[in-house]
């Protein structure tokens, strides 16, 4: 197990190295003088020169890479050209809302989608099954901002049950955080319910056809027990995989949801950084997402033996 984790971590080195290089050369791949680009149209030659010095652009490329890597090892990703704040600090600030939203969305989506998928598979090709599929496709197809504004209108503007927008940090109390997360979570979860329910249904359909399901029934197990213990456990790996993919994309980019609900998260930070050509910040985001993705994939892989003991690490 530990050996497997070690090997998996080793195998991520090439991927991360590639992302590192990509992030580094991002600045140099952009057409024109990076310093002039960053400084903007109205900058004086002195300002451009200052930026050039700050980014070590006068050094040879190899020296620049070396300096960049050394800084990275010290968790120094440079400073944002726009706000002049350290990139690490900016990302850290925006990390909490995104992580909390991703967690709450994943929990809600799984709680809704897995039972729906199981029921659809058990009642395959009946009205119930078709109803679930229609629901899934609808949740999938309606844009998140439409659902978002509808939810805000009903539950915040009309009923005053929940805040319209914004995010309350955990430091100010869990209650406020949860209240601020309810509407964006529901809006986003509807999207992921469709995805997870469909995979659950497809996998369960396959598993329910297996001989050991017949054995369980022949032993006298009732439907609920057959579905939840004998079938669902075997259907685990594909479901967990799609949940992991969903979680990763929730961390990576929910710009629209963050904008609709005015949540200061990573999605909006990335969008802003790209629009402002804030290259150090874009570099930092790229690395953050790459590391998160690798970590999530590792966690997903490590859950497989919990469902299927034939997989051993």
């Amino acid at each position, binding site marked *: 197990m530990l050996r497997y984790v070690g090997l998996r971590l080793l195998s991520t080195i090439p991927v991360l190295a590639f992302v590192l290089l990509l992030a580094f050369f991002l600045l140099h791949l952009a057409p024109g003088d990076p310093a002039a680009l960053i400084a903007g149209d109205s900058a004086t030659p002195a300002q451009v020169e200052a930026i050039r010095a700050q980014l070590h652009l006068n050094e040879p490329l190899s020296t620049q890479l070396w300096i960049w890597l050394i800084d990275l090892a010290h968790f120094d990703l440079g400073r944002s050209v726009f706000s002049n704040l350290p990139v690490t600090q900016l990302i850290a600030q925006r990390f909490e809302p995104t992580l909390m939203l991703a967690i709450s969305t994943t929990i809600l989506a799984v709680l809704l989608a897995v039972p729906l998928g199981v029921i659809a598979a058990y009642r395959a090709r009946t009205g119930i099954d078709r109803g679930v599929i229609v629901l899934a496709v609808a949740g999938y197809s309606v844009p998140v901002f439409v659902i978002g504004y509808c939810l805000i209108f009903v539950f915040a503007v009309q009923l005053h049950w929940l805040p319209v927008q914004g995010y309350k940090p955990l430091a100010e109390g869990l209650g406020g955080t949860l209240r601020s997360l309810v509407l964006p979570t529901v809006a986003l979860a509807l999207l992921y319910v469709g995805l997870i329910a469909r995979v659950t249904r497809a996998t369960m359909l396959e598993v329910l056809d297996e*001989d050991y399901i*017949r054995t369980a*029934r022949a032993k*006298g*197990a*009732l439907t609920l027990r057959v579905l939840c213990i*004998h079938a669902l*456990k075997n259907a685990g790996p594909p479901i967990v995989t799609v949940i992991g993919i969903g979680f990763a994309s929730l961390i990576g980019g929910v710009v629209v949801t963050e904008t609709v609900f005015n949540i200061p998260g990573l999605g909006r930070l990335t969008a802003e950084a790209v629009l402002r050509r804030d290259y150090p910040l874009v570099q930092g985001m790229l690395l953050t997402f790459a590391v998160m993705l690798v970590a999530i994939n590792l966690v997903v892989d490590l859950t497989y033996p919990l*469902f299927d003991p034939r997989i051993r690490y």
Partner: protein
Amino acid sequence: MTAPVLQVENLGVSFGVEPNALHAVREVSFSLSAGETLCLVGESGSGKSVTALALLNLLPPRSARISASRLALEGRSLLGLGERELSHIRGKAISMIFQDPMSSLNPALTVGYQLAEAVRLHGPVSAAAARRDALAILDKVRIPDAARRLDEYPHQLSGGMRQRVMIAMALACRPRVLIADEPTTALDVTVQAQILELIGDLKADFGTAVLFITHDLGVVAEIADRVAVMYAGRIVEEGEVSQIFDDPAHGYTHGLLSTLAVANRHAQRLPEIPGSTPRILGADMGCSFAPRCAFAEPQCRTMELHMAEIAPGHVTRCRRAAIVRGAKSEAGHLAHG
């Protein structure tokens, strides 16, 4: 002979919707006494497994339609029972073991869990007591080092060991009837012999009636008390094992026996019954086997046929039974021809 434990009369199973329904099992009747082994023999597609699954209503509910004029366990009718009531019968009064022990055991659950579950589903037993029971049953089916096996998963056991676990699971509640659906087909010959011996011993211990489904006539000769030969969804001949082997009274039984390799030791090429089992759509006239039968005459295909008793306990659906019985001495000759 004691009163039958299991009585089946006019069992029919069809799949799909008329007029295109597939009649997999038709007019199947048999009874099973305590401690008796009835072998259900036939080719693939003859309806053996469907018959077995229909007894416990384990066929896919939306595609299979089961009908019977009587289906009773120790006098109590099983017809029309709901899932909940049936679940008290399944695994307790009537147990089943299946052909492929690898795919029939749940790969995600430990052997101990699956065994203990069989016990706990049918009585208020504590987890610890169920585990003790599971251990005792594993010992009973002669699994060495049983305590260690409890915490292992099916994939860690050999094929024979897995089938022993299946048998242990089926016998956990000391059922009145054990339905064994080709339990040795997936095993190699030496293991096959051990499993047959085990089933025989346990049957003697518990007084369980066994419905044993197989296409292997060698196995039949070894374990059967009575034999029912199935063809195209019907039982075409039934009798004591000696009656069937020594005095076959149906063209199909005769054909089956003449294909036995032992009987044809000197043959260049093993004999076969020409053709394959038909798919039965709708009602048909006459004998389903007639097109492949060495004894058939034109009337076989058109006349309505009924079970007829030709000796005590020996029934056949063949109208040419007398000819078939007379031909037994020529079996070898026929096979060569």
